[in-house]
């Protein structure tokens, strides 16, 4: 299956030199990448299946420069694709051949740490983990911890509404940010929120979060910081079946316990991890569940006992509680190594991201096995068990004829299965280009039209990150949102894909 992107506009490509000339007047020379070899570095993000060479790469350093670029883009009808660190797993930052890739990496400063109001004001190119590092001396941290946190930037986290292993208890990005500065496509800079809570009108802060770079360019983020829990302990639990592990997870929550993290791995992953770097996971089980409990010492010790009993009742054959910090980290090491470990089995893997109602896990895993057999491919499963977010890793070899296509088809079928049991296409990786053409599985045409009307309210010309999220691009004029004269219609040759 081939991804169809908006056809590059010849009229724009023909004016490339003129556009570059105008940009040179706006940006210092080191902020503009024109040379083809250097542009190659930006041809994809962490979703490497599809690539495109951007027409121009700009790396602005100031809000004024971002505004100037967007005004120029409006004037010259240039499309914009924003990019943070390029760690998107769904192709959210995949370039357009007739578009300007707007890299925000130079916005890398922490502007203010306000301990009194428990927040930090940072630029969008600051790495997720750098925020926690900057405040850890005083015992604080920034809660959302996507597994790419050493590389991914907070601006990208906002675009994707990034999660992590602790979001059941501490929330996603959307629950942990207080304010944004955003440059709109017309070049206006607006502020949403700040150090206070909630909005004076519509919650545009919430809308921007997870909008996948389709609504505006984020130039500043105010994040909440939290005091680290006094104590964290982990339980390593092994079960004779996937069902038993799932039963345990449900019972923990039914008992009124919301763990800091609750992760599950299937047999294939457990064995891959133990071969990659042994960390003491039991090999005679069908599923491993890691439960992290955090809080004050008394509470954690008490809850460790309660969860251990719940696990035994659910049929756990292994139940070990960490008694030291290094033991806790060792329990986590396998989970954190799961992706590279699985990568040893096959040269490539495709990481899916559906979320399902947790209770449907056994049937979804069985269904997934059947699908994998049908496509003759292997699937290893890592699962944010607490919140139902599945990460099936489809193993394939891109050098082998037809493998890539089969992997992609299997991925689509797995996501359809997730939707059919009441789940969704993506829990934290975003739709991007990867799941774009599956949006119709979850939403009606009317639902998608309404989302696109919102897009039009922000970007009436449809020049910001087109080709992402929505399977069919409508001109805003079709929605009666704006008056368009014949010669000004954008993408007149746009394919309907």
């Amino acid at each position, binding site marked *: 299956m081939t991804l169809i992107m908006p056809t590059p506009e010849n009229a724009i490509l023909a004016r490339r030199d003129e556009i570059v000339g105008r940009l040179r007047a706006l940006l210092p020379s080191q902020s503009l990448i024109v040379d083809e070899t250097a542009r190659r570095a930006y041809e994809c993000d962490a979703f490497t299946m599809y690539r495109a060479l951007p027409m121009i790469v700009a790396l602005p350093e100031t809000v004024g420069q971002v505004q100037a670029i967007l005004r120029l883009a409006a004037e010259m009808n240039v499309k914009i694709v924003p990019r943070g660190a390029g760690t998107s797993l769904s192709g959210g930052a995949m370039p357009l051949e007739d578009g300007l890739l707007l890299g925000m990496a130079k916005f890398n400063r922490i502007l203010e740490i306000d301990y009194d109001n*428990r927040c930090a004001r940072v630029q969008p190119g600051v790495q997720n983990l750098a925020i926690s590092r900057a405040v850890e001396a005083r015992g604080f941290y920034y809660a959302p911890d996507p597994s790419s946190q050493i590389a991914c930037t907070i601006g990208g986290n906002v675009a994707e509404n990034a999660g992590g292993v602790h979001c059941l208890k501490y929330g996603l990005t959307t629950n942990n940010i207080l304010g944004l500065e955003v440059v709109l496509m017309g070049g206006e800079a607006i502020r949403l929120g700040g*150090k*206070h809570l909630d909005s004076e009108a519509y919650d545009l802060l919430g809308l921007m979060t997870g909008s996948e770079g389709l609504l505006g360019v984020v130039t500043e983020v105010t994040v909440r910081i939290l005091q680290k829990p006094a104590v964290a302990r982990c339980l390593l639990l092994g079960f004779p079946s996937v069902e038993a592990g799932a039963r345990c997870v449900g019972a923990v*929550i039914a008992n009124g316990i919301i763990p800091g993290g609750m992760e599950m791995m299937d047999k294939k992953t457990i064995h891959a991890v133990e071969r990659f770097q042994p960390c003491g996971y039991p090999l005679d089980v069908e599923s491993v569940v890691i439960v992290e409990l955090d809080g004050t010492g008394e509470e954690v010790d008490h809850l460790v006992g309660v969860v251990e009993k719940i696990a035994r009742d659910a049929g756990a054959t292994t139940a070990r509680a960490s008694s030291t910090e290094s033991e806790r980290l060792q329990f986590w090491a396998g989970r954190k190594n799961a992706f590279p470990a699985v990568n040893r089995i096959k040269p490539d893997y495709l990481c899916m991201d559906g979320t399902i109602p*947790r209770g449907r896990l056994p049937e979804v895993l069985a269904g997934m096995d059947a699908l994998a057999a049908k496509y003759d491919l292997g699937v290893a499963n890592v699962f944010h068990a607490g919140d139902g977010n599945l990460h099936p890793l489809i193993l394939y070899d891109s050098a082998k004829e037809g493998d890539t296509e089969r992997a992609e088809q299997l991925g689509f079928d797995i996501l359809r299965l997730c939707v059919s049991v009441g789940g969704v296409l993506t829990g934290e990786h975003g739709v991007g280009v990867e799941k774009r053409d599956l949006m119709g599985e979850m939403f009606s045409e*009317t639902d998608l039209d309404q*989302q696109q009307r919102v897009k039009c309210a922000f970007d009436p010309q449809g020049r910001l990150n087109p080709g992402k999220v929505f399977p069919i691009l409508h001109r805003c004029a079709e929605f009666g*949102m704006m008056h368009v004269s014949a010669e000004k219609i954008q993408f007149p040759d746009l394919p309907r894909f």
Partner: protein
Amino acid sequence: MNPPAPIIEIHDASDLAEALSVANARGETCGITGAGSKKRLGRHAPASKMLSIQSFTGVTLYEPEELVLSARAGTPLREIERLLESHRQQLAFEPMNFGPIYGETGHAATLGGTIAVNASGPRRIKAGAARDHLLGFHAVTGRGDIVKSGGRVMKNVTGFDLSKLVCGSYGTLAALTEVTVKVHPKPETEQSILVLGLDEASSLALLRRATATPFEVSGYAMTPPGVIPGLDVNAAALRIEGPKISVSARRDQLLSALVEPSNRIMNLQAEHSQKFWAAIRDAEPVARQDGQIWRLSVAPSDALTVVEAIRNCGAPLRAHYYDWAGGLIWLSLSPAPDAHASLVRAAVDSVGGHATLIRADDAVRAHVEVFHPQPQALAALTKRVKVAFDPAHVLERGRMRAEF
């Protein structure tokens, strides 16, 4: 005086879509009403007809182990809370009851109305607002389109998060027909510590220091003398919830981290603590006064600056108190035709935040902006978002902004 708008009973989403399409065609405006418990909240701008969704009731999905509940928008909140209670669960965002503010007894609110105003309570810092608990919804837009967004799972980034938009939109974008929310375990027990007699600045500083501890405090309020009946001194109140074993341990740790031996302390055990926080949640300390009521959201460390600025410019402050460690300020002012809006807003604008006029006569709310004005570019964007759902301004016209 105009006759009241006719009330039309709506029975299902297609009814609602039909009514809104007709309103679009005829150029009429529609208000949406459930139990009517918030009819005096927002600008006063009567609609040509009221669409009642009071018969849209019933819980359609409740899976305690999955922490999820769906209900039709007109389902009484009381009924949902009773159901959750029977499974030792709750809505963690502690939706406020507007009854005391508008002089009505009981708690008539519906789940839909609660979401439409993004209600939240003292647990805001720890657990979030309604907007943080709305997982998905079904609604009919101002255009008359039946739409859905989100889902029933905890983690979902599929498409734009329209849940955030409808939450707190006062029905101006779409009329909710069904909503799905996250539910949480109800804490086994709770306790509160009141530190008495510190001055206002020190009390607020103590609350902010408490937000920087790892003890999972779930309420941070400060009440001046006389605001809570029987308390004639300033009180800085902290709430701790959870398993019994951990509540008393955390209480002791909090005391030793924050409180001087010379401080006067008062302890509130379970039921007393519950009553105290219900009063804070429902704005009872200002509701009791017959003044106009404002609700201010600011950075916690700016709280006292704002209140002093309002006091110093001569605004007739009758009562006030703080929640959210100072981030939420409730004020009661002597009534005036302009509700002292420019004084209050100038004080808030000097530090950043927003002020909402929660209680004033219809005549006042007809011409004073109830919601905080926005800078030009943001106001223009807000209007474009409104038009994206409701191009003819049919739904709740004038409820939030005079211009739509």
